[in-house]
């Protein structure tokens, strides 16, 4: 059975690139343009009995940013233990640390190498 990933990013091109990479790795993908939309997607997936196996999120987004999104994801029963990867260009640790504190599993630095992304996902998802 194929697995499902939720990709949250306000940049359409970035979202499409991540989704393309994920679909090549056998994932079904759901997209959202910001944290609030991401929560809505999670909620929708939960209602239709769909399991989201992985969440990849940008940090800088309008309406609801990635940090707040991660925090709220961690308060949801169905997503408490879902691996959450942050997509970040911030190489200085501040944002990353905030994300970790909010409950992120790890981060991927933009620009990302698709093969590397797949490899990293392989690690967080047994």
């Amino acid at each position, binding site marked *: 059975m194929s697995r499902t990933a939720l990709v949250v990013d*306000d*940049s*359409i*091109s*970035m979202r*499409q*690139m991540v989704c*393309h*990479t994920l679909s*090549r*790795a056998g994932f079904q993908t759901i997209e959202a343009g910001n944290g609030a939309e991401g929560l809505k997607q999670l909620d929708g997936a939960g209602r239709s009995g769909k399991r989201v196996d992985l969440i990849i999120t940008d940090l*800088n*987004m*309008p309406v609801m940013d990635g940090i707040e999104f991660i925090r709220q994801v961690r308060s949801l029963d169905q997503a408490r233990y879902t691996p959450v990867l942050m997509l970040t*260009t911030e*190489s*200085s*640790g501040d944002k*990353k640390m905030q994300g*970790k504190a909010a409950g992120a*599993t*790890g*981060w*991927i*630095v*933009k*620009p*990302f190498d*698709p*093969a590397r992304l*797949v490899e*990293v996902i392989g*690690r*967080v998802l*047994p």
Partner: protein
Amino acid sequence: MSIDLSEFKDVFFEESADHLAAMETLLLELEAHPEDSERMHAIFRAVHSIKGSAAMFGFDEVVRFAHGFESLLDDMRSARVRNTAVLTGLLLRASDLLQSLVAAAKSEGGPESGGLSAAATALLGEIDAARGGAVTAAAVAASAAKGEERRTRNLEVHFTPEPGIFTTGMDPLFVLRDLAEAGSGYTAATYVSGLPHLDALDVSRCYLRWTAHLATDRGDDEIRDLFAFVEDGAEIKIEDTSPAAALETAPAAAAVPVAAQAVPPGQPVDSPTVRVATAKVDKLVDLVGELVIAQSVASQILEHFTMERLAEMREAFVNLERNTRELQERVMAVRMQPLAGVFSRFPRLVRDLAAQTGKRIALETGGEETELDKGVIERLADPLTHLVRNAVDHGIERPADRKDAGKPEQGVVRLTAHHESGNVIVEVADDGKGLNLDRIRAKAIERGLVTAGENLSEEEIQGLIFRPGFSTAEKVTDVSGRGVGMDVVRRNVEAMSGTVTVHSRHGRGSVFRIKLPLTLAILDGLLVRVGTEVFILPLISIAESIRPRPQELRQVGGGGEVVMVRGQALPLLRLHRMFGLEGAEEDPTAASVVILDQDNRRFALLVDDLLGQQQVVVKSLEAHFRKVDGVMGATILGDGRAALILDVAGLIAIGGGRSLAGVLD
């Protein structure tokens, strides 16, 4: 598995264009609300987003500049740097340059073409200064160093994982393997001193720690990123053990220019794209579904057909027809885009022009949501720009003059759009001084456009400004320049099957009104027959059709003919003669005359017969043949024959004079 992401470049360029356009609007709004943090954040995100995706495609110059730009915006949004008018100017220039850099990346000419790289460096300098100097200077230098010649360092990395690391599904070995790949000469020592006595050993705990050595050109941050998943509770220390002397060695050999590197792989293919609301696509999918059902119903009836089922068959076809028509309309709707895309460029233009001319002008827009065919929208930008420039330059007066005239010092240019009976009307209005009829008339006489004795209505005089070679500006200004006049606006608009008119009141202002068809791809036409040929006339240009009585036909001097229609003499053009056709009806009283109306100019066109109205799909003739005066395009008729679609404005222009014979050969 190799995954190629280059196909997403187009998405990136489109998205960047949107970001840049939105940014400009936001920057201009920011001028009025310098402390608005929402706008500030939105601008930051736009630049940040462009930087992120640009890095994916290796557009280094875009990334380098966006990084500096973003730093300034970050300072501003966190209120480390206060917004000022000067700063807004700088931000606008930065946004322009970012746009050029993205454009250079798109054309694959590289940033070196046109000295963009130097411009970027210069502007980054200004940005530094704005940020209070030196802040980014170091950062830019560092990132430049990062991009060009990265220094190799010897690192010692200490890693003590969190003891519970195995329970999180992580394996410290992953990190060590990544570390080995991050540089050369990797060696690692494993410290087992933390291992407890066998009795006390918990197999789910990690008691080991490591120290790795490697030579790498990656920065500390990048090395630290390798630990992204094992960081929690872990101890990670990175030390530079390079010999001090290594810091001094200027790597002269490494500084070999990387100039003649990438050969651009041919011309980039610029395939225009349309972004479509998902709802529109969903509706199409629904309709196609219905169409398939209707079609299968029809074929089922056909399979077991008896005459008794004729009514059923007919109904099935009615369904098919309805679905097909709706599908056609919906597909056309896909090409429809809101005018907001064009309108959004004007706030900036007006701001800059007002600053240049020392006038105070507010731009008001309305009806941006009005949709038009994508092709029309793209071609509308130029004429519209010209009209707005004119309104600013010639229309609106200087503040002092306005005050003298008892008007508010700030002038208003209003840009609006709305639907009107199957057309879209776009208006550029100003509350400036209006057209000076006396001067227009004098100029027209001077230019030989009209004679001194000619009796002209107000409307006719105003219409003169659209004639070729007319310019009323007292002196050539920086803004509207010389040569290109209103006649070009008119030509551009007419090329889109539109019309442009002006209504002006002296001292009160002018309204330029552009009337455009909703789409260029489909046209409501009247099919007419001439001899054995069928032509199509755009329904929009047709006033009426008549069969003249003999006493309504007159011969005039120079071999011309006129038809009297309700007391008005209209020139009669014989279509068969214009196209050199044989076998056509020569006697107007036995044929049909179509009265055509274009820009309030009327004339009569002689054809053999009217065949009926039909929607036709316009195929460009130019793409396959060449531009022919009087012909707008061609179409395929229901019976498979090709027919020419006539261009009424063109027909008037050649007005019975020149023969079109030969076109059909």
